[in-house]
């Protein structure tokens, strides 16, 4: 096999992406075949590996870029706010006014769901969906003038020092690192605090943090190296909390990563940031420099003799990179195709060495937990409430939710676990927008499907219904669902960090089909159930939406789609394929009337 190693002892394969990145910048935003061949020769890799990488990541282009490249988000809140039709209008306008100088395309969620529809022009953010503003910005770019982009900082600034998570009140002091090193650097002290706090992974899976740290601590490495990777590739539609953490309190995440390194015995770490977050990349790099100057990062931390080197790794793009094993593949310079597990990353991670990979927020809670103790964190969380009941004692801690869609004040909110959806909307988000009612809710981006305002108990965990429901009910109010990951599992719904609320008047079926397209578009293509299944189920949704399915056909269509969805869940390699059918399945399960109604519609125009 073609394996060569660089001076750090890593395979030179991992240099493919940085080398291509450099060439692309030098060429002016694209790569020629000669560039690619030169990279192949430079790092001694076959041409097909270069092609595999260039063609996989949206960051790389093989054609010269137009003068203005406009990308408009087509997912969830942006879709709900007409971004798709807006894209069509912008395309037509640009074609007419500027021809080939401007390229307009729809892209997957940009992570600015709180200011929909979101767009970028040459990677500069333009939000708030005003077409006139967009046209003006494009014109400015074409004239080499400043398009006056929007900044994430505008939203993040008011949060500096406001979160309970930020135990430093806005400026990191790295006390937890200092204290850990000063007090004997005993991993067990940190692990005990994390266990007491019952800190769970905030990236979606909700695994117990102390356990993961313990696994990496216990794992053996073949050449003595272990690694820490912070997953800041926040790409799940509707989710943008990490975007704010990395601006308002990057010191928390960075300190959490350094601590993790010290605890498990890693000397190197990376923060893997999605490339649509340039402000965050800059902010993290700045904070790492500050920490290094303080002695909390780099060599000889606080004169302890221990080292920890931290870097930012900008993602070459794509939702799939957020999948933990795919992210590691990307860092190794390969296509971000998820690995088959086991083995887990804790034993066979980056370069097959033990690797602790966690979400930005999981790391960010660590300094506060170490300062105020595990009990403090465990003490947070609503111990009572309509659904918490006797499970209240299990509800621990706080977390950040990103809320968008038809609420009055979309944004990032730090709330106690166990808060109900109703309270989140009414108390924190200022209620529904324009007095609308809830038509549908997505509680985990698109991955949990859409819930109807009244959730039939037939869709909930049967054991929960049998053992826990005290009265005969046919359904329950979606607003009563407690936002806690353990309770969510027990009750039988999916809970993530991105909550999108759809108000009355929206076309729920169209929204579900858009969500289904998202997974189809973002599938890496590695395994069959996801690659072909996500296409087929999206085609089914589009046919239904276009009124091309008769009620009679729906009879056979429904079981096929349901079975396909179940098989995708059971057999796909990674989480993407496992949930890719959820949007359409939830229509058939939660909104059967909408499906039947769609059959009666005459050819409704399917949007693209």
């Amino acid at each position, binding site marked *: 096999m073609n394996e060569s190693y660089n001076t750090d002892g890593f395979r030179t394969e991992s240099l493919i992406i940085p080398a291509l990145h450099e060439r692309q910048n030098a060429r002016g935003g694209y790569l020629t*075949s000669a560039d690619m061949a030169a990279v192949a020769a430079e790092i001694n890799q076959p041409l097909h590996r270069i*092609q595999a990488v260039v063609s*996989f990541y949206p960051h790389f282009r093989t054609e010269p870029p137009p003068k203005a490249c406009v990308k408009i988000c087509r997912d969830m809140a942006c879709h709900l706010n007409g971004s798709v039709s807006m894209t069509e209008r912008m395309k037509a306008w640009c074609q007419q006014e500027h021809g080939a100088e401007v390229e307009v395309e729809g892209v997957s969620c940009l992570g600015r769901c709180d200011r929909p529809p979101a767009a970028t022009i040459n990677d500069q953010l333009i939000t708030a969906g005003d077409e006139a503003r967009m046209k003006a910005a494009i014109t400015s770019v074409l004239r080499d003038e400043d398009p006056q982009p929007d900044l994430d900082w505008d939203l993040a600034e008011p949060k500096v020092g406001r979160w309970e998570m930020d135990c430093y009140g806005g400026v990191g002091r790295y006390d937890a690192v200092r204290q850990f090193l000063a007090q004997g650097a005993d991993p067990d002290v940190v692990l005990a605090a994390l266990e007491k706090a019952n800190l769970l992974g905030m990236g979606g*899976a909700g695994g117990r943090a102390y356990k993961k740290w313990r696994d990496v601590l216990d794992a053996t490495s073949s050449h003595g190296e272990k690694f820490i990777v912070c997953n800041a590739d926040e790409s799940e539609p509707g989710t943008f909390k990490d975007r704010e953490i990395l601006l308002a309190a990057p010191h928390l995440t960075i300190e959490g990563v350094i601590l993790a390194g010290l605890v498990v015995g890693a000397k190197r770490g990376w923060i893997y940031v999605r490339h649509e977050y340039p402000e965050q990349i800059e902010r993290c790099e700045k904070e790492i420099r500050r920490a290094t100057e303080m002695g909390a990062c780099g060599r000889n931390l606080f004169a302890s003799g221990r080292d920890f080197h931290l870097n930012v790794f900008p993602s070459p793009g794509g939702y799939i990179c957020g999948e933990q094993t795919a992210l590691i593949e990307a860092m190794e310079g390969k296509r971000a195709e998820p690995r088959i597990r*086991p*083995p887990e990353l804790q034993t066979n991670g980056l370069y097959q060495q033990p690797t602790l990979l966690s979400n930005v927020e999981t790391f960010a809670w660590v300094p506060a937990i170490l300062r105020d103790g595990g009990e403090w964190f465990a003490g947070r969380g609503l111990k*009572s409430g309509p659904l918490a009941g*006797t*499970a209240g004692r299990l509800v621990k801690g706080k977390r950040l939710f990103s809320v968008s869609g038809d609420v009055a004040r979309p944004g990032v909110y730090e709330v106690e676990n166990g808060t109900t959806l109703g309270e989140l909307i009414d108390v924190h988000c200022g209620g529904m927008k324009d007095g609308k009612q809830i038509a549908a809710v997505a509680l985990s981006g698109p991955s949990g499907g859409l819930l109807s305002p009244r959730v039939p108990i037939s869709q909930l965990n049967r054991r929960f219904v049998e053992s826990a429901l005290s009265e005969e009910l046919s359904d329950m109010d979606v607003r009563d669902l407690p936002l806690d990951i353990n309770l969510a599992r027990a009750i039988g719904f999916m809970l993530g960090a991105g909550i999108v609320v759809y108000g009355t008047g929206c076309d729920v079926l169209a929204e579900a089909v858009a969500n289904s397209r998202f997974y189809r578009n973002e599938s890496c293509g590695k395994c069959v159930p996801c690659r072909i299944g996500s296409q087929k189920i999206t085609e089914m949704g589009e046919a239904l939406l276009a009124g091309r399915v008769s009620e009679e056909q729906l009879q056979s269509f429904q079981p096929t789609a349901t079975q396909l969805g179940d*098989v995708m869940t059971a057999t796909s390699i990674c989480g993407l394929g496992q949930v890719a059918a959820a949007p359409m399945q939830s229509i058939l399960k939660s909104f059967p009337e909408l499906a039947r109604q769609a059959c009666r519609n005459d050819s409704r125009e399917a949007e693209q």
Partner: protein
Amino acid sequence: MSSDAVPNDRPMFDLGALAEEVLPDDEGLFARDVDGQLIRVEKATARELDESLSLTINGETLTVRKAVPTRDSQGNVINDPDGAPVPRLTTIFDAASRAFVKRPGDPNPIPTLCHKEHLPPIGVCRVCLVEATEETPRGRRSRLVPSCVQRVSEGMIVHTIDSPDRQAAARVRAATSIVVELLMADHLPADGEVAPGNELSAVAHRLGIDQSRFWASNAHRGCDDSSKMISVDHEQCILCGRCQRGCNWVKHNEVIGRSGKGYQTRIAFDLDDPMGHSSCVSCGECAVSCPTGALEFKPTFIETQIARLRDELRKDGQDGDIVTADELIGYPLFSGIPYKFLQFNGAAVVRRRLEAGDVLCREGDYGSTAFVIMDGEFEVFLSGTRGAVRNRPAGGFFGWLGGLKTVAEKVGGKAKLADVGAAALGENERIIRNQDDVILGEMTCMNRYPRSATVVATRPGEVLEIKRNVLYMLQRNSVSRQILDRVYRERSLRGQLSGLPIFRSLSDEDKLKAASFLRDKADLVSVDPGQTIFRQGDLADHYYVIRLGFVKISQEDGLAQRVLNYLGPGNGFGEIGLLSTLGDRWSEEFEDLRAGTRTATCAALDHVELIRIDGDDFRELLERFPELRDPLIREAKEILRRDAADRHRLQSLKSDDFLDQGLYLAQSLLVLDLERCTRCDECTKACADTHQGVTRLVREGLRFDKYLVASSCRSCLDPYCLVGCPVDAIHRNGDSLEIEIEDYCIGCGLCSDNCPYGNINMHGFPKQEVDAKGKLRTVYQEIDGRKLPVVQQRATTCDLCKSIDGKPSCVYACPHDAAFRMTGEELLRRTQTQ
């Protein structure tokens, strides 16, 4: 119920117990060991080949090894250079193969598409799903897992689509069916025209699926027709990655990858170049690997191959028709070989019809083919009178190296011929009668030795003449191998054994008895070139007899390795190590030896077929035939004494280079006498002038005394360069010495890599093609607006060209009489007499 209606202080549900038992479950099955520790997966170790665990598949409890040996595409174990199998961790699929595939050709209870046992598993098609159950401290967990990737673990319970647990089988079948239907919707040709060997349609058939429930794809993925040899139909490509692994992992060509992402993903060559313009060397591995019609040999390619062969046959005045893949696959002997491999080697099998008196092959000829007897009767002649061919210490250089040269020996009677080894030639027989599936000429075909006998048809008959690639496949493929071994055992094993040199002291009757005794106890094994059979100092456990090929016997003496002998077909080896354990009386005779250990290392020099006899059976043989002992001991002692004497002599000869540099194999060295040579380079110029301006010799090389051995083809007795050519473009013809490279060389560079002496060079030539009018023309391409010829790499080597006086040009051109052509033996003699 609404939030307003429920007072906040009244708990409605008792969730406590439930929430505690529903723990986050983000780990795969079997991620942890019994102690709850995550299992780190590392490379399998040799120790794991012997460690076992048990699991249950379809209700049967099986004990399997933790690791299995890595195998090649024909099911043969791949060994490292030390002869040890390369282990890999046992998967569920491996375990099922072990348990349910009793004979080659039996179906595995698990269907697969992206998996082949000789490739590293990638688990992407999800057709090999099984339901696996793990007992964890928190209870049982079951999940569908890809059996090709999932490693076995203690106590695992597995159900396949054929499980007697009907419900489990139905769950697996339902999931597998959906996956197969997805593939069918997108990748089976819409017109239902499926080529033979399409594994997707076979899997669908096995699962009883007539039609996919999903709408057919309307994605137009396109075709690539740019390669002369292989057509690419992206519509049929299921992205199983078998071509990719075949190209990069099996052949190390590194041409095929994946391009694009998600539903748009396709296989791609280099930078997504058309296949015909990529660095593809057309080795054919991708097409042979492809389970569907996505990569197929073009009919035109196959026709061209056949047409070329037909022309050749006509030129040579031979008759015979070309046997197509479709016909071959119908013969049981060929039925286990991949259809596309037979297609690829479309011109590799010719049917020859012989009349009485027709010569099938002639002693002393070189050739690259073997013959499968279909029908007829043949007589075997040896040079001079009837005799046997035996490796006998020949005089001169070869005398002290041991008998390498195959010389005819008049011993009357038995024909112990490597080339007719499989034929049942009994005592005083030389007629082969009606023995179908018997192969003649293996030795010449596999190892390129001259034909050792002349075979003449005595009545009309029919044989299939097969080329090396096909013979290799026959010997390797488990189905074919089984047929060949059965035939060999039935017909000629006893005859071969009875002629063993160690039986010389027995009466003819006892020879047969002894052979009968051993026959049923013998194993038939293949050894790859270079592989060690046993090592000096190893425990002696077997006695071996060579059927085919040559075995090198060497001893480690300090740091240096000395070759003691080369043994050819018909010889046995390994008896000394066994003799030294035969009780006190015996071991006393060998006082210098550690009892029961090997005194030398034996390794295969080329492709070797062995008869292996267990040490205990060998000892029992000596018990039964006590008259064997004394001569054996005498001979063994003689060998050991000679070895010791040789050791001293060799050291004084300082001829290590002769062995190390392979000069003993050389039949035509280009030797320059440096006392006469003025370095004028006329030899190099003459070579270039003769060969389109490209020299095939380099005036550099090893020095022996005043002689320089220049870098130029040596016409080795055992030319390594001929091994493995994917298109069979390099060979030795007839009885001439030179290595010939045909102009259909595809430039893959394998022969150049194989030549240990750097005497084959790759050169770029303008690519030429036959145009519609049948004329050769150069192929051009446009680069940056300029028309440039397409450059194609081709291998070149010395063709021993003849100049005016019959000498090669280089020798003829030397104005100083300093250039000579001679054998290795001759050179040694010259340096020794200096």
